């Protein structure tokens, strides 16, 4: 069995979701190939070769792979997946954009967002925003699978010694082109891989008030998240959104402040190890999943919390 993993990277650094995907691939078999396609992405290819569990890196360079356009990457994956029994990619927007196209061109179904592998053809995946778990068996000759990072502990990023093979790009498709990107440059840890996440909701009332959260995040070394309502209201950018349609995360500690706990929000964070909720409404559904619930006004609780954290050594 030969397993092809498509690396998510920014032409420089491999994204941690790729490490979780390699870990899933290693459960399926030991012949794991990592495809690193990009532009000036030698350093990403090199770090790909160091991931434990990767046997071989396929490194491809072309200007039209720089921004991971789905049409271009699909053509490449289809051209170099011969002999693969499984094709895997991380389940974020990168994999979701790409893999269904690959599956369609191979004329096979796709299994989205697996969190568990039972055998080479049987997987567990959440449906209905994680309110049910489906065990599915793929009868397709090639299994095309996106991997939910929270289901698999990341493979070690160093210690592997895979060989790097440079291959030719597929001919350009030319249907789409990159225009621009807008992203929050942040000193804080990445939301999807942070050990501690503190999220704010509509309860904050304004983007300005989110500063209260930033202050605590800095003290805890935490990433910041948000509910959809907070994003819709413009308090923060869309990439902060946690939930069914935002990011799915499972940090060691998740602190939800001024968030009611709608099922769509819970879908993104209820696998966290420890959940704290701060909400002034004691009936808020977020308390049903919280290990520690504090019924309080956030505008009083957060400054006190900030002081209390200062007193810790």
């Amino acid at each position: 069995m030969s397993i092809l993993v498509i690396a998510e990277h920014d032409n420089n650094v491999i994204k941690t979701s790729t490490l979780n995907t390699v870990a899933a691939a290693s459960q399926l078999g030991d012949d794991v190939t990592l495809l690193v396609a990009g532009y000036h992405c030698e350093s990403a290819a090199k770090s790909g070769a160091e991931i434990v569990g990767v046997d071989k890196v396929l490194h491809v360079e072309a200007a039209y792979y720089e921004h991971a356009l789905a049409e271009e990457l699909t053509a490449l994956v289809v051209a170099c997946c011969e002999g693969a029994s499984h094709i895997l990619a991380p389940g974020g927007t990168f994999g979701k954009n790409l893999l269904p196209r690959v599956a369609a061109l191979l004329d096979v179904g796709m299994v989205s967002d697996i969190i568990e592998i039972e055998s080479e053809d049987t997987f567990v995946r959440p449906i209905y925003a994680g309110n049910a778990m489906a065990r599915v068996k793929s009868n397709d000759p090639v299994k095309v699978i996106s991997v939910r990072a929270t289901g698999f502990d990341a493979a070690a990023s160093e210690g592997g010694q895979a060989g790097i093979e440079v291959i030719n790009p597929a001919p350009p498709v030319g249907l789409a082109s990159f225009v621009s990107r807008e992203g929050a440059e942040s000193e804080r840890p990445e939301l999807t891989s942070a050990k501690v996440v503190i999220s704010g909701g509509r309860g904050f009332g304004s983007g300005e008030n989110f500063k209260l959260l930033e202050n605590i995040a800095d003290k805890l070394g935490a990433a910041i998240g948000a509910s959809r309502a907070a994003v819709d209201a413009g308090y923060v950018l869309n990439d902060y959104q946690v939930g069914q349609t935002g990011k799915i995360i499972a940090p060691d500690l998740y602190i939800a402040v001024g968030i009611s706990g709608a099922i769509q929000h819970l879908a993104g964070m209820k696998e966290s190890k420890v959940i704290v909720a701060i909400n002034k409404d004691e009936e808020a559904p977020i308390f049903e999943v919280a290990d520690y619930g504090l019924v309080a006004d956030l505008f009083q609780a957060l400054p006190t919390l900030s002081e209390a954290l200062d007193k810790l050594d």
Partner: protein
Amino acid sequence: MKILIPIKRVIDFNVRIRVKKDGSGVETANVKMSMNPFCEIAVEEAVRIKEAGKAEEIIAVAIGGRQCQDILRTALAMGADRAILIETDVEVQPLAIAKLLKATIEKESPGLAILGKQAIDGDNNQTGQMLSALLGWSQAAFASNIEFTDTGLEVTREVDGGLETIAIKLPAVVTTDLRLNEPRYVKLPNIMKARKKPLDVMTPQELGVDVAPSIDVLDIAEPPARAAGVKVADVNELVDKLRNEAKVI
């Protein structure tokens, strides 16, 4: 230009779903059903494009049982011109849905198909991308803004790192994210008018598509429940528990 909008009938997003005891699925008897929220956004976007004079006709398509007529009527009331029901009682998987949509597109020749980014029942997030690949069309998934340009569309996409804007050629498949627009409320006179709009019924056989699933659902289970937590009296107790009991700070 015509716009095709594939829409799915799902359990309403406000319903707390219940898993059947025998593991065969989730309870749907007497459960409120509605149009998938992302599909509503797709309908709204198509209607706005038509209102802006950039499209002449909007065709809504649903694949599923007879009951899908209700969401098709909703789409017509929102402003779609005509509807097609591809009727089947089989649970059709994304690849076969995409093939049925491709066959429909080959008959209707729209210049744009707008789908939801995901159906909130299966959470697959596959169909639009598959359709685009089968047609060899360009793709813009997870759209939060769509602009028409001289050469096609400029679409802003919600991606993990923030927002990405791409330029794509037409014809294209676009899938909607939540912030693309806010769907309108349907007014009563429009519901009346929608009753008179055409709704054609077809079958997968007529379109020559095999809808047999390639992925078997073996069983469906409840997710593991979280152990009940505790309420703390104040911030100091919270910090103490996090440090000494949970040991996470």
